[in-house]
């Protein structure tokens, strides 16, 4: 009997300093920020995870490092998803961009940069996408108050 792909991934893909767990049937890999691109590259190249579904962050203001950056991948061959997570500190919220691997990373990383201020090293285009030029702050951070008002943009006539 062949080994289930989820077990192979769990055995092969946990880098030094990382750990693997299962959450509602999904494989979750915690990886250090500098190992992220390597793990994603192996997922894409060796294990046929051809769809980069999503990237977002979770803000834990009381914790150090402060941010989780959460990635979801899907494989159309294995018909399963994998979640990658990495932690970055508030002082240097930088991870490697997945743009070299997936075209879809362009926009999704822009959104995550908008909302949390995560910097994706290697994504040359981190202009605002859902927000506008001149928006101050990162609205999905927990210390951004919901009723905070942005400076009024002058009428452009």
């Amino acid at each position, binding site marked *: 009997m062949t080994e289930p792909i989820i077990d192979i991934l769990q055995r092969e893909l946990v880098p030094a300093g990382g750990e693997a767990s299962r959450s509602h049937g999904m494989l979750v890999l915690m990886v250090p920020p500098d190992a992220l691109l390597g793990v994603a590259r192996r997922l894409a190249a060796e294990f046929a995870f*051809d769809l980069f579904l*999503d990237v977002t962050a979770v803000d834990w203001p009381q914790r150090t490092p402060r941010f989780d950056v959460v990635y979801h991948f899907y494989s159309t061959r294995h018909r399963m998803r994998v979640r990658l997570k990495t932690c970055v500190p508030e002082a240097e919220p930088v991870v490697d961009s997945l743009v070299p691997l997936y075209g879809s990373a362009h926009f999704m990383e822009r959104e995550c940069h908008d909302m949390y201020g995560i910097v994706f090293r290697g994504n040359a285009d981190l*202009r605002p996408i859902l927000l506008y030029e001149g928006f101050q702050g990162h609205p999905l951070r927990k210390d951004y108050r*919901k009723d905070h008002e942005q400076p009024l943009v*002058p009428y452009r006539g």
Partner: protein
Amino acid sequence: MDTRVDTPLPNPIRPAFERGQRDDAIVVSIGPSHPATHGTIQVIAELDGETVRRVDVHCGYLHRGFEKECEDHTWHNLMPYIDRLNYCSGLINDFAYCEAVELLLGVEITPRCRYLRTLLSEYSRIADHLTCVAASLMELGAMTAFLYLVMIRDYIYEHLADLTGARVTYTYGRVGGLARDLPAGWLKRLGEILDQYEMFVARIHGLIDRNRIFIDRTRDVGVISTADALNWGFTGPILRSTGVACDLRKDTPYLAYGELDFDVPVGIKGDNYDRYYVRMREMDESVYMIRQLIDLLPEGPLNVDDRRCTLPEKRLVYTEIESLINHFKLIMDGPDVPPGEVYAAHEAPNGELGFYLVSTGGGTPYKLHVRSPSFVHMGGLKRLLEGYQLADIIPTFGSVNMIGGECDR
């Protein structure tokens, strides 16, 4: 009064390019509010004659802080916001979200609820595809086709209003069940609408499929390969139009899809014509599924019997103290969802609609993130526009079916 300002005023967007790569190229800004696009989106295009050389797509004009707002409401109270993501098929948003919360709670929904959610998902899919096909045909000048399709869609909207009380934004999903059961005669009317759907969609096939003008405008326009589509994150009908039968309903069956017989229609080359045809065929499959589901729909309770999420009966709320307090706690504090994180995805009409939830325990989500297909598709839209004609932007954009509500959140 002189109103000139010496310092340059901030622009809502900063285009990726201000001028063309060649002297004779021109850069035009299309949108964000353009009569020929049914979505609030801005396309900066560099034109060489009529040919589009480069584009820079900007969305976000409908951004309303959905995810931030959700962090401030109980798991139940944010349901109306969920509806307004993809407002052409609000029920599918509801059910995908409910499933994610139910996974966190460890709740298994009742059989009747499971089949009914499947039925309503497919019904919503028809409404969504009708909207997309109707609007993109109208933008090419096919007014009759538009009216035929939107007429059927309106029958569906009115019919769903009988069930849910609203035409578009239903707020019908509930964690652990649904808001109410089917009214009397609802399934009979459903059968009538499906019959009329078939009659009018047959007319659309007659009017459009072999129509020279339609073929010239859509065949070999906006072509994308399977590898490119995957790389740019395309899912749903756009990915299937490239010839790959990738459908979450088949691949990772949820709700009652594992028990249904249906095909996954695919295209041959991933152009606008294929996207039109895949959507038309998918609606037929949805009708086929709904007819099976009408026969399969079991009797029984609609909501799970779980005090953590299901509201007690009104009769009991008014007569016994336990139910009264139960009702009060569910409304004021929200369902107590155990800590954890979950990602649940449904095959929405446009592609994979995923909800990533983080709970730290308690009645409100710590984080709620939506993986919306439209937003990802906007990232890949330039691949479909570059190299084609300026006039092709309209049918291509129509065939992508960008929904501002879920794209911009």
